């Protein structure tokens, strides 16, 4: 029998996440001969809409409809999956806030190896998978080997695989809801608290001067504000600046912050982690200033400048003011 690969599809407001398209490609790259099944969990009309949307991409879709999954708490979804997945399933889950919550425990309950945050599949030799990961916030990469004959749980980085826009599977939806059983767990969802709105809406900004940990000290933020003022830009930032409470959360760019789509993004002292870059959409012109020539941000920026921002930014401000 061919290998069974399952793509767990996350969704919101009745729409599948972008990873639905990406995982169709990722699963093929993992094993071109695999039997690939998408799995969606939730309830009601919203879930049906997602299942039908995903059936356009996968030959088979497994639907888990349960009133308890109106909000898909990871502990419950995990319990549902353990109830229906074959022991030797290879399961793909997005490496983001839901995947981080659900997937590590799933690997233990399925007694399968766990490969986290994969960015590429290199080869499959017999039952041994060779996958590519990154360590130290993308400063170095590694190949890892793992025997997946008995199954595996693999989290895949969102955006790592290019979606195939022309893919068409004309698949069918199989209802697995009856096989799931009781979903009572020791964790109960209460509510979602929506992020506070700040004084500027950086999602609407055309020019962003964005500052990261390289600024070193709260007092140094002044040079960033000065530059932004001269350029007619807004100030945004990476997460450590918000963690330190130097700027408000509404100015954070990234997967756990805002998604921005400016024309120009000037990244100052930001290393370029995928969680940060994941918040930048619409292919802006990215200029990175970083004192480390090997900073990962230089792989994704259009223009790179190796400089100390504490010296460089004031000089740039002066030049902009004079222009």
């Amino acid at each position, binding site marked *: 029998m061919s290998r069974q690969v399952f793509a767990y599809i996350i969704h919101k407001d009745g729409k599948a996440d972008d990873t639905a398209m990406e995982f169709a490609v990722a699963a093929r790259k993992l094993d071109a001969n695999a039997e690939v099944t998408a799995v969606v969990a939730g309830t009601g009309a919203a879930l049906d809409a997602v299942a039908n949307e995903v059936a356009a991409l996968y030959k088979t879709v497994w639907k888990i409809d349960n009133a308890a999954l109106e909000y898909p708490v990871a502990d419950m979804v995990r319990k549902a999956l353990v109830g229906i997945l074959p022991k030797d399933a290879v399961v793909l889950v997005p490496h983001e806030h839901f995947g981080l919550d659900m997937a590590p*425990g799933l690997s233990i309950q399925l007694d399968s190896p766990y490969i986290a945050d994969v960015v590429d599949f290199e080869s499959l030799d017999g039952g041994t998978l060779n996958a590519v990961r990154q360590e130290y916030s993308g400063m*170095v990469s590694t190949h890892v080997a793992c025997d997946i004959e008995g199954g595996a749980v693999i989290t895949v980085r969102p955006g790592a695989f290019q979606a195939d826009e022309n893919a068409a599977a004309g698949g069918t939806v199989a209802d697995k809801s009856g096989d799931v059983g009781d979903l009572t767990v020791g964790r109960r969802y209460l509510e979602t608290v929506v992020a506070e709105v700040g004084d500027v809406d950086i999602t609407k900004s055309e020019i962003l001067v964005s500052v990261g940990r390289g600024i070193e000290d709260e007092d140094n933020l002044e040079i960033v504000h000065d530059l932004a003022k001269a350029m007619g830009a807004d100030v945004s930032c990476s997460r450590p600046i918000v963690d330190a409470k130097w700027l408000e959360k509404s100015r954070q760019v990234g997967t756990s912050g805002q998604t921005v789509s400016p024309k*120009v993004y000037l990244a100052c002292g930001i290393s370029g982690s995928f969680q940060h870059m994941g918040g930048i959409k619409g292919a802006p012109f990215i200029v990175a200033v970083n004192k480390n020539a090997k900073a990962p941000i230089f792989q994704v920026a*259009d223009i790179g400048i190796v400089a100390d921002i504490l010296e460089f930014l004031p000089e740039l401000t002066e030049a902009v003011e004079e222009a």
Partner: protein
Amino acid sequence: MEILVCVKRVPDTSENEIQVNSSGTDIERDDLVYSVNEWDNYAVEEAIQIRDRVGGSVTVMTVGDDESEEVLRREMAMGADNGILLSDDAFENADGRAVASILKAAIDKGKYDLILTGAQADDGAGQVGGMLAAMLDVPYASLVNIIETIDDQKIKVGREIAGGNQEMNEMNLPCVLSIQTGINEPRYVGIRGIRKVASVEIPTMGAGDLGLDADAVAPKVKRLDYFVPDMGEGAEMLEGSTEEIIEKLMELLKAKGGIKS
């Protein structure tokens, strides 16, 4: 509340440039500065604050070599009451799952109401907390940035999800939580604090003490090499004197609409 925090000693990425060694078998480890994993400091701070509010104790635990003792001492200087070092030659190549198995074996020897880990460590896997919870068969929540104690049966936690929103949950105790940065402001540890705990005895447990055989800690995921990712196109690097760079940059910014006047 009896709280356990799992901590890891990692190369400090803000102090070091991480580079692949010449044979591609490891990162260059000479002259690396190590510290406590950034996320773990937030976890320890949170544990200390909870203990100070509701009573109990904070224990810090790490799987590592002799040098890992220093991170336990640092966290004890922050205010943790006890430290436990889990160390054995057999643990040397442990992957995330093996680390979780070792921690589980040690946790079974004690009694904890709340177990905290960091959201992720140096290799960015974010796996140990979730695995540990499943092994202990207790509830788990990741990326936690709010903890409110209710009583000795349950707590309320907020998890960070997309867009800066928060998912609020009620959880039964005992449970495992992985802690996200920003949940608090970890306190500063001075030399004097470290000195105060310099001679505190830190118990060590090995594979034998924990009843673990070689099989239980054998890695299932093996790292084959380290390499520098292909830069692809990469950025166009502006070079020359600062004046030249700024002149070029100004031209580009003007062309791309990067300067509003």
